[in-house]
């Protein structure tokens, strides 16, 4: 591929230094060997189960992890290695986060004012805000609301509007769909598609693979703190035989719209990770080699996969 990714995460690892008992501290490795690439005009969905730490990826890119977190690996933006200072400069300007809930807004400031902070063009702030409000069907007076006055749907739109007016090139949406019904989900998803079509890059972090499949160009499958596969959305069509990793195949088969068959076992906990491949304890194709060697990411059929035997 000759196109250069706007955002590239290489071999990211995040661990937390935590107390267990008394003064005994352990490093809890929550994310290991995670690779993600994001291109302009594209939607990448990072799909993984809830509570598995995938939001940390967004927090790592923005540089807003808590103090007891230790990161390794590299994050490149436009081909340039990001330092913590860069992250601070870029976040909100070039890289915007659409957080999970209005709890991320300042509860004591009117939403209109909060949106205006993110607009660089100070002279036309008012017009930009009223334009975007009109586009999302938000009434003028919503500008004067405080976050607690927003209904669920309004809140979503305000958060979305905030990311849009910022002229950011990369938008990261953290779990944008929970609590919405089918119609609202479709609306949100359509918005993301529109955003991507204007040439921006969208990373959607979600547990809902069905929602992701509707709009994403690429799907990164997040499992036990790593990405096992990056597939094109089209690979999921049909019987999923174009998918590369055994886990992705199993995930596709487990969908209620497909066969709804489970796989025994569970995702390993952060401090019980298998020594070799992270999926080795549940994998039907497992060999001795899988138990000792962590597979490297390799490129197969225009996608990436972390499996020794993927074809």
């Amino acid at each position, binding site marked *: 591929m000759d196109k250069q990714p706007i955002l590239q995460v290489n071999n990211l690892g995040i661990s937390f*230094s935590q107390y267990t008992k008394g003064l005994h*501290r352990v490093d809890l490795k929550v994310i290991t060997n995670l690779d993600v690439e994001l291109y302009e005009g594209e939607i990448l969905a990072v799909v993984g189960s809830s509570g598995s730490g995938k939001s940390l990826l967004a927090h790592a890119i923005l540089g807003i992890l808590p103090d007891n977190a230790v990161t390794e690996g590299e994050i490149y933006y436009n081909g340039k290695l990001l330092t913590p200072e860069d992250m601070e400069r870029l976040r909100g300007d070039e890289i915007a986060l659409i957080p999970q809930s209005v709890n991320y807004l300042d509860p004591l400031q009117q939403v209109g004012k909060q949106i205006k902070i993110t607009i660089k063009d100070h002279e036309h702030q008012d017009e930009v805000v009223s334009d975007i409000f009109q586009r999302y069907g938000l009434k003028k007076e919503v500008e004067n609301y405080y976050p607690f006055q927003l209904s669920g749907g309004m809140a979503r739109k305000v958060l979305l509007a905030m990311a849009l007016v910022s002229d950011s090139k990369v938008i990261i949406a953290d779990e944008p769909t929970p609590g919405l019904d089918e119609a609202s989900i479709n609306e949100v998803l359509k918005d993301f598609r529109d955003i991507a079509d204007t040439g921006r890059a969208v990373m959607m972090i979600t547990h809902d693979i069905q929602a992701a499949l509707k709009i994403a160009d690429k799907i990164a499958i997040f499992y036990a703190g790593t990405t096992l596969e990056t597939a094109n959305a089209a690979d999921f069509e049909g019987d999923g035989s174009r998918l590369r990793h055994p886990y992705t195949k199993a995930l596709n088969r487990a969908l209620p719209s497909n066969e709804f068959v489970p796989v025994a076992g569970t995702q390993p906990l952060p401090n019980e990770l298998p020594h070799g491949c992270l999926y080795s304890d549940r994998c039907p194709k497992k060999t001795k080699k899988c138990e000792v060697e962590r597979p490297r990411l390799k490129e197969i059929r225009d996608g990436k996969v972390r499996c020794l035997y993927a074809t």
Partner: protein
Amino acid sequence: MMEQVERIQVPQGPLFKFGVREKAIIAIGLFATVFIVILIAGSLIPEDSLDVDLYNIFASPSLAHPFGTDWVGTDMLLRTITGLYLSMKIGIFCAVTSAIIAVLLGIAGPIFGGKIDYVISWLVDLVLSVPHTLVIILVSIACGGGLTGIVIGVTVTHWTSLTRVIRAEVMQVKEMEYTKISRKFGKSKLFIAREHVFPHVIPQLVVGTVLIFPHAILHEASITFLGFGLPPHEPAIGVILSESMKYLTSGKWWLAFFPGASLVLVSMMVENIGRNIEKIINQKTAYM
């Protein structure tokens, strides 16, 4: 081979990597030691060591008498420690008693609800709405003054805020899904209060109790200073301070300065212990 536990030990160099817990524990340990030393010292000072020494009255601070001496030549350091010892005993007693009242009322209100809760909330509001000092003076006089009077007075006024905190916590836990599920499993109210609610109250209780202490001793001292608390023959800080007022204008600053500063320092230390315990117990900061 599989299931291999990946626990990496953090190098625990005691000098270069201090987490929240280490810092908190060091602070607590340090202040608690000072606290206990004062307590022990206070209990070891015999009554007759507060001797009259008329050759040595109003000595300013020196090596022999670091805190100076008073109008009858008694060593002020000894008087201060004895005073602190008494204050601390009163403080501990009031804090513990207030905390017991707070737990009982704070849990009983929401659990039984209805009129009981109403009465308890009304009592809390009533006590909180009148200035503490005033209530303590009134209660203290009504109970015949002296040690008993001041202890009852301080206790009666200090259980309220902790009761409110505990009541709020209980109300919240009571509405949690896991508590309601427990009801559907056929668990009794007593089981829920003991197993579900109480563990959530403990942190607030411990911190709250410790934080009542500085309030209690400062109130005791100020009431005594005003002349409504402990009688003049008691070795209390409040008595020392009010006595020193007579000599301040003649430049005997040490009579008030050292006892007063010691009392404030003890209060600040205990306050600090409370804050640090909070850091360790609070789930948000405890694991970092």
